[in-house]
C-alpha cells in the first residue's frame, strides 16, 4: 500500500480560487475548513505563474503540487514529498486531457459546471482512494462517456411496474445464488 504510486488530492478551481470540483484522498486535511485553507493557499501561491503551455510545479508544506491552467480553470494534483513528480504530472495530464475531451475542447468554468457530473466521474475513474487507476485520457473519457450515454432509460422515466419487475428479477437472482 505505502509503495503504491499515489496522489493526495486533485483540485479543480476557478480563476478566483473557488472550488469547481475537488477530491481528497488523504487525511492530511481532516476538516472542510482545512481543505479550503489549503485550496486558498495553493491558489494564491500559484496564480502569478504562467502554467498554460506546460504544467508547472511547486513545493508546498511538504507536498508537491503540479498544476496547469486553461482559460479560467486551474487544475492541481498534489502528492507527498517523496512521490515521483513525473507520476503526479502524468495524472494531471490525464485529468487535464480527459476533461478537454469530455468538454469538447471548451474548457472553461461555465462548461465545466454544466458538465460537473462528467468531471466528477472522471476524477473517480482516474484515482480510487489515492491509488492511480488510469492515466490515459482517451480511456478515461471513454469510460466516463459510457456512463452518461446510458442505453437504458433513466430511473425516473421508468414506470412503477417496470421498476417492480426489475427489482423482482434482481431479488430472485440473488436468492438463487
Amino acid at each position: 500500500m505505502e509503495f503504491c504510486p499515489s496522489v493526495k488530492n486533485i483540485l479543480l478551481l476557478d480563476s478566483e480560487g473557488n472550488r469547481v470540483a475537488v477530491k481528497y484522498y488523504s487525511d492530511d486535511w481532516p476538516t472542510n475548513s482545512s481543505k479550503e485553507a489549503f485550496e486558498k493557499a495553493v491558489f494564491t501561491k500559484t496564480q502569478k505563474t504562467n502554467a498554460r503551455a506546460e504544467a508547472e510545479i511547486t513545493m508546498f508544506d511538504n507536498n508537491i503540487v503540479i498544476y496547469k491552467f486553461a482559460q479560467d480553470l486551474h487544475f492541481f494534483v498534489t502528492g507527498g514529498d517523496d512521490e515521483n513528480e513525473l507520476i503526479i504530472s502524468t495524472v494531471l495530464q490525464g485529468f487535464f486531457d480527459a476533461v478537454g475531451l469530455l468538454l469538447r475542447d471548451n474548457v472553461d468554468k461555465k462548461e465545466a459546471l454544466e458538465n460537473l457530473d462528467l468531471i466528477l466521474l472522471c476524477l473517480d475513474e482516474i484515482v480510487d482512494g489515492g491509488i492511480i487507476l488510469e492515466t490515459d485520457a482517451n480511456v478515461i473519457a471513454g469510460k466516463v462517456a459510457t456512463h452518461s450515454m446510458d442505453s437504458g432509460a433513466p430511473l425516473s422515466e421508468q414506470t412503477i411496474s417496470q421498476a417492480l419487475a426489475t427489482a423482482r428479477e434482481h431479488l430472485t437472482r440473488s436468492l438463487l445464488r
Partner: protein
Amino acid sequence: MNSKTDVYRANAIRVLCRITDGTLLTQIERYLKQAIVDKNPVVASAALVSGIHLLQIRQNDRLAVSKLVTSLTKGSVRSPLAQCLLIRYTSQVIRESSMNSQTGDRPFYDYLEGCLRHKSEMVIFEAAKAITELSGVTSRELTPAITVLQLFLSSSKPVLRFAAVRTLNKVAMTHPMAVTTCNIDMESLISDQNRSIATLAITTLLKTGNESGVDRLMKQITSFMSDIADEFKIVVVDAIRSLCLKFPLKFRTLMNFLSSILREEGGFEYKKAIVDSIVTIITDIPDAKESGLLHLCEFIEDCEFTYLSTQILHFLGIEGPKTSDPSKYIRYIYNRVILENATVRASAVSTLAKFGAMVDSLKPRIFVLLRRCLYDNDDEVRDRATLYLNTIGGDGSVIETDKAVKEFLFGSLDLPLANLETSLKNYEPSEEPFDISSVSKAVKSQPFAEKKAAAKKTTGLGAPPAGPTSTADTYEKILLSIPEFSTFGKLFKSSAPVELTESETEYEVNVVKHIFDKHVVFQFNCTNTIAEQLLENVTVVVDASEAEEFEEVATKPLKSLPYGTPGQTFVAFEKPEGVPAVGKFTNVLRFIVKEVVDPSTGEAEDDGVEDEYQLEEFEVVAADYMLKVGVSNFRNAWESLGPDFERVDEYGLGPRESLKEAVSAVINLLGMQPCEGTEVVAANSRSHTCLLSGVYIGNVKVAVRLSFGVDSAKEVAMKLAVRSEDEAVSDAIHELVAN
C-alpha cells in the same frame, strides 16, 4: 457485479467495497477473487484496488516480495506505473538484503540501471531516484543515474527540471563531488522562470561549489534574491551559512551578502534565519567577529522584532566585551534604552552591565548610563539597573569585579528550564528559601509518546516538533505519591524505558529504572492488548538471585489493567548507599485474568484465573548511575577537574561496522552527555575525538575524553581519559569499558 458490461462490473465492485463491512466480507470475497483474474484489465484493477482498501494488505512478507521482484525483474511489465511500483519494491529488497550481507554486489542493481534506459521518463526518473537513495551508494553506481538526471535538467518541461534538480540537491548533501558535473547546467537554471527550480539549483550549487566559484555565484544570487518569496530566501540563507563554514576564507563576501539582505524587507522567520547565520559564523570564525557584530548592531538600530533585538543584545553582551574596542558598541546598546519597548530596554540594561563588569576602563561611563535607567517607567528595567549597579559596585569607585559577580552575570543557568519551572511551582512560600541546587539537572529522557510521534512523519513545513514534556518530573511526582517510596529521598535518575516483550504480543511491558541513593525502583509499564481480557492484581515477580547487592523491600501491584490503557506496577529494592551496584534481574508477570463479557463497557466475569507471563530479563548497569549533564565549555570543565584523578588507558574494540557506530556504542555504554557536538563523526574519517560529561551517583562530576582510530580492517582502537572528583569513580568508568 455480474453484468456483461465491463465498466459496470468494475464500478459495482468499487462501490460495493466502499459500503461493505467486515461481516459481509466473506460473502463477496469469492466475487472479488474472480474479478481479479478477469480478462478485462479495468475490472481486475478495480478489484485489486478495492481489495487493498478493504484489507489494507500489508507488505510484511519479505520473502514473497523478494520472490516477486526476482520473477518480475526478469520478465517485462507493460505499464510504466507498474514498473515504478516494481522499482520501489526492488529498492526495498535491496535495502533489506544489504542489511544482511555487507559485501558483494548489490542484487538487482543491474535491473535498476536497466530501467534508466526505459522509454518512459517516469520509469527512468524513478530508477534514478532509487539509485541515489540506496544506502552507502558508491560513486560508480551513482554515475549513470546522475547522467540521466543531467539530461532532465535541460528539458523543456518544468516538472522534469524540478524533479531532477530536487534529486540532485539531495545527492549533493551526501556526495557533493558526484554532482559537480552538472554545475554548468545548474547555473543556467538560476534564471529559471519557476522559482522553486531556481532556489533548488542555487542551494545545490552552494553545496557543491568550490572556493573559487563563490564570488561569481554570490553575484548571481544577489540579483535573484529580490524576487523570490521569504521561504525560499530562508533556504538560501541556510545554504550560505554552511558554505561559509566550509570555506572560512570567503567569510567577507558572504558576510557582506548576509548584511545586505538583512537590511532589506522581510518577515520574522527570514530575518531570524539571517541573524542565526551571522551568529553561527561569528562563533565559528573569529576573524568575522568584529564586522559581524557591527552588522548586528546596525540591524538592531532599525529592527521591528523584539525577539531578535533581545537575542542580539544578549549575544552582544557575551561577545562584545571581548573585542578590541568594546566602547564602540555602547552607543548602539544605549540607543535601545532610549528608543525601544520595555522588553528590549531591560535586555539592553543587562548587556550594558556585562560590558561594565568585563571592561574595567568602561565602568564609570557604564554607571552613568545605568543610573539613568533607574528612572525608567518600567519596573523590570529599574529592577535590573538597581541590581547590576549594586552587584558590580556602582558607588562610583572603580573596583575589581570579583569572580562571584562574574559568575552571576555570565554563568549560564545549567538547569533545564522546564525542571526549574516545575520546582518553582512546587515551592510553597515558607521560612525556607528556595534552593536552586535542589532542582533536578537531569536532561529529560525521551518520553514514550514522543517516540511514537517521531515515528510518524511530521507533516507541514511549519509544524514544530512537540517540545519534550517533562517525564522526569512526572516520574518524580508519581513515585513521591506512593507512600512506600516516599521515604527514599531525591530521585537521582530515571532511565529510558527498556522493552521486556516483543512488540505486538499479548501483553506489552517495559521497565523504567529509577535510581535513588539507597534504593532502586523498577517501574513496569504494562499494556494489555487483548480486548477480551481484563487483568487484575498485576505484579511483576522479580528474581534478583543474580544481583547480590539488591534486596527487595516493597511491591506495589496494579489493581486492574483493562484493554488498551497502560498501567504501572512497581518493585523497590534496597542497595548499599551511594554504591553503583549492578546485577541482572529475571521477571515474570503474574496476574488474574478475567473474560470480558461486554467489550463496550469493559464489564468482566466475576471469576478469574491466575496466570503468568514470562518477561525478558534486564540489567542494572553502571551507566544507570550516570546523569547526562552537559557542560557548555568542555575545556574549562576538564581543566577544573585537574589531573589528580585522571586515568588513561587504551582499548581495542575489535572490528566494527563503522567508526560512527563504535562512537555511539561507547557513548551509550557510558550513558554520558556528548559535549560540543562531538558525537557527530564526519563521514569517512579515520579518527575521531569525542568529549563527554556527566554526574555520577553521589554528585561526582565526571569528564571523559575519547580518542578513536580505525584502520583499514575496520579494527577500532580507543584511548579513554577520565577525570573526575573521585579516584574510585574514574576507575569505575574504566571498568565499565573494560567489561
